[in-house]
């Protein structure tokens, strides 16, 4: 199953489960906002989206990951708007029989997300000014 959502506000994480009997791996990735950007201290990142297309692309990408890798579920939430340092901007949860396919799917999904999903971000400096954020890691 796929769940993909763009949210404007703090992310409500997908719950962990103890009831699954066929999935040996539950992978959770939380992308969080670092305190520095290009060596400068920042207070937050501000994300903007192409409304409609961003969630559609995220959903399509999740479905492609499900077809490409032998995983059972991929759940994803991406936050937009102002995200303070330390907070989560991207939350991904993948369930699979073994860890390897889950790890491979997670890596591929996040790499493709950074190439295709129309979301952009600016770093907000401590003096309130904004600079482009260019992290591609």
């Amino acid at each position: 199953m796929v769940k993909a959502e763009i949210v404007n506000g703090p992310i409500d994480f997908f719950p962990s489960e103890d009831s699954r009997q066929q999935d040996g791996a539950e992978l959770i990735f939380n992308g969080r906002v670092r305190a520095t950007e290009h060596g400068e201290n920042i207070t937050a990142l501000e994300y903007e989206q192409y409304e409609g297309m961003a969630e559609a692309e995220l959903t399509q990408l999740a479905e492609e990951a499900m077809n490409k890798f032998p995983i059972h579920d991929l759940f994803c939430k991406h936050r937009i708007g102002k995200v303070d340092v330390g907070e989560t901007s991207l939350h991904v949860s993948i369930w699979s029989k073994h860890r390897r396919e889950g790890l491979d799917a997670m890596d591929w999904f996040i790499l493709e997300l950074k190439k295709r999903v129309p979301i952009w971000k600016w770093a907000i400096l401590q003096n309130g000014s904004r600079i482009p954020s260019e992290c591609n890691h």
Partner: protein
Amino acid sequence: MIKITVKCFSQVRYALGIDILNLEFESGTSTSQLEKFIRGKANGKLDGISLRIALNQKYVPDETELQDGDEVAFIPPVQGG
């Protein structure tokens, strides 16, 4: 004539100073011709910036013919995550 809406994001919005453009073109105009027009309007501020084309919220090849009522966005490098 056809009517086109161009939605502007990130560097494109910064370069043009506007969120949405409502434009009219001759029938048969392509997305690449529209991109040339947009880059010209940006007065060099989009030089060196690669743009992918989204037509009605889906990525399309460069040479796609525009239709009346289309929504177009020129997508600068994305930065999600």
